[in-house]
């Protein structure tokens, strides 16, 4: 996709969300729409859509067991099996999936291939792995940290994570590490898409849009916390109200908050319809989540049906005389 068009669409869409929230939240009487209705709608669409997609995948059959075997199979007892890369048990599969989901093990294997003097040179390249891991974990921690806004009392692990995240103790209020890391990681992923020719060539608007959207979510969050402060007591009143299903719309929350909420809601709504569903799909990928035990245990294909196999009888009928002449035994003389 043409990069200018792609960027234009991605940036334009995010800008539109920001503008709608900016103006909309200042229209008298519309604040409940942006503060209550939109988050609820987004949440319902997100949960419903996510479940729908996963159920759709889950209901489609897995006719064959075709994992990519990246290590030694279970074989003769004196040959060491690679239980993680070529699992033969459920535990092995869980292990493989654990490292895949939590540490992006396959991405860690990434190498870069270049031509130099008629030779291909492969060099390890961990940037994409580091960038992806940094982004996902920062985002996860930020999401967990946000639970403090929805829960009374605030659970211990949320408080603990909060303290850990703010361990640098820079500035007032304290700077969260993940805030910075999230933006850095997103900037890297974004620039990588633009600067690496191959990446630019394969990228679609749907690849830029979530990056820009989440970047703006992070940026508005940071703005709200450090620069354009909002009344946190009112915010918590709203968020706790939302969580307890008794929503109230306190007065005097700054417009930046509504922009932030609109962006987050957009992400929630967009999620189930987009590539972001890889979050659910990774668990269902038959290339990774199956044991390599096809020869040990029979795997059943639910839609298996009999096929027409050219029978031995027909074969012998075709070649009987020739077989006899060659001294190959036949069933019927």
């Amino acid at each position, binding site marked *: 996709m043409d990069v200018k068009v792609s960027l234009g669409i991605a940036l334009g869409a995010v800008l539109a969300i920001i503008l709608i929230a900016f103006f909309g939240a200042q229209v008298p009487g519309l604040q409940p729409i942006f503060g209550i209705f939109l988050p609820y709608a987004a949440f319902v669409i997100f949960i419903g859509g996510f479940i729908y997609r996963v159920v759709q995948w889950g209901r489609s059959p897995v006719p064959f067991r075709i994992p990519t075997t990246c290590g030694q199979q279970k074989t003769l007892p004196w040959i060491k099996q690679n239980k993680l890369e070529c699992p033969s048990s459920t535990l092995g599969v869980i292990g493989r999936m654990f490292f895949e989901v939590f540490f992006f093990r396959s991405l860690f294997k990434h190498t870069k291939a270049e031509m130099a003097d008629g030779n291909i040179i492969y060099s390890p390249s961990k940037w994409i792995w580091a960038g992806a891991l940094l982004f996902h974990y920062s985002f996860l921690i930020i999401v967990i940290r946000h639970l403090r806004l929805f829960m009374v009392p605030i659970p211990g692990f949320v408080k603990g994570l909060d303290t850990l995240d703010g361990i640098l103790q820079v500035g007032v209020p304290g700077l969260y590490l993940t805030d910075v890391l999230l933006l850095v990681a997103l900037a890297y992923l974004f620039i990588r898409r633009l600067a690496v020719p191959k990446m630019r060539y394969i990228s679609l608007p749907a690849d830029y849009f979530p990056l820009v959207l989440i970047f703006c979510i992070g940026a508005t969050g940071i703005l709200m916390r450090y620069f354009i402060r909002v009344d946190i007591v009112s915010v918590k009143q709203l968020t706790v109200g939302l969580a307890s299903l008794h929503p109230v719309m306190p007065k005097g929350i700054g417009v930046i908050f509504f922009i932030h909420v609109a962006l987050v809601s957009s992400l929630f709504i967009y999620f189930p319809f987009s590539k972001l569903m890889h979050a659910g799909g990774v668990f269902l990928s038959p290339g990774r989540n199956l044991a390599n035990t096809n020869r040990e245990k029979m795997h059943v294909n639910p839609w298996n049906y009999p*096929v027409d196999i050219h029978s031995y009888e027909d074969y012998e009928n075709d070649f009987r005389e020739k077989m006899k002449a060659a001294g190959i035994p036949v069933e019927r003389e």
Partner: protein
Amino acid sequence: MAKLPKYYELLNIDYRPPKGNWMDTPVDIRPGIYCYPARPEVLKKASMNDRSDWKKYWVVEDEDWGLPDDWKERLLNKMRDMLSKYRTFKVYMDICVRCGACADKCHYFLGSGDPFNMPVLRAELLRSVYRGEFTTTGKILGRIAGARKLTKDVLRQIWYYMFQCSQCRRCSVFCPYGIDTAEITIMAREIMNELGMNIAWIQESVTKCLFTGNHLGLQPQTYKECIDCMLADIEEYVGITIDPSWNRKGAEILFVVPSGDVFADPGIFTLAGYLMLLEHIGLDYTWSTYASEGGDFGFFTANEVAKRMNGKIYREAKRLGVKWILGGECGHMWRVLNQYMTTWHGPIDFLEEPVSPITGTKFENAKAHKMVHISEFTADLIKHGKLKLDPSRNDRLRVTYHDSCNPSRGMGLYEEPRYIIKSVCNHFFEMPRNTIREQTFCCGSGSGLNASENMELRLRGGFPRQNALRYVRDKYGVNMLACICAIDRAAFPTAQQYWNPDVGVCGITELVANALIMEGEGPRTHNLRGFEIATWEPRP
């Protein structure tokens, strides 16, 4: 046939993609890259769509292919059907984030620089159609959502590039979600088979195999004659007379090999190796002319065709009343056997759990399937000291091992072949780590693409492997590439004549047979190829 570029022209590879939008890039179907279409009469004989409903004879390079009026509907119906039958297909259409990890992992991309050979873009060709024809967002947003309608031009592009994937699965190793491009091109090929859009090289083998029992179309007497030829060679060079049995009822084991080994140099020397090895240990086994093919080119057309071809092996095992089945060295054969065969035909209760009659080893990993790989079998024999070996007979050879794609990434057979080679050769050297084991490169001709009219594609795709081979040739003086795949043995000599003209190709059972000290053998002055062991210089 297209003129072959010189190697320095071929090496003029640029990994930077062109400017502009790939969706606007018209497909340029080039001679030397594509394979000829399957002949209608050959398709018809196999009861597959023979394109008789097309408006004209299919000429690939023509702008207008003369597709039937309802071409689009039929392709989309088939695609819908496949989406509902395979979770792989559905999930892989949905979850790619285009992270680019696979982009430079494909041997065809590394050897050509064609951006559509990046696995991600190869898949996007089909994914864009999936989004445009099957998803709501794609239907509404169109190109903004990366969606396209299926048009005749899009179909031409999809066909061209789905037959530039050898289904080696190297990209799937690096994908953070395990998306397997092989699975995507398998689906695409099956969808296009709905209209009879297969290639001649694959279809000829399929149709022959369905009726004569093997890809080469060798009738029973010819199949036997080919093996008799090797028996004569063994008698001459080894001094041993072997009289194997044919279609014999009551044998303990049925032995099935890829038919390529029966016919073509250097596979025939691997075949000679099988004959010597199994004679030496006194195995009670039989050959079959009906189940005379382990490979399955049907796998490169449609699932049902693959199953029809593969079904003969169990049928024959049942008819002959054997206990279990031993399989020879072959790549896609073992992918199909390992990942599909039992599911297609199981449960296999008429055979017994494989046990080596020589060592007593139970092959527990083959409990349900009842087939054992010759490398598993041989490694077990060597481990138990059942073979008398003289590795010094292979001392002229400086060997490297090519992990054939399918037994590697579709089975996990990595250590057995290495153990065997190290037991029968004194000089073994590994190619660089990024090019072996689970990261191994395809020979460049897999998945039925080992025709001759697409030679440029094959040489380009073979380049990453050949480049790694050249590295060990220069560094360690490697002069022999060992492998466990019949397509490898057919494809590498061609690739090596071009890229590494002083490195030979062999199957590992040939190496075993060279080193094997057989009871009553004559003076072993010549190897199975008829060259003097003491002075042999291998060539492709």
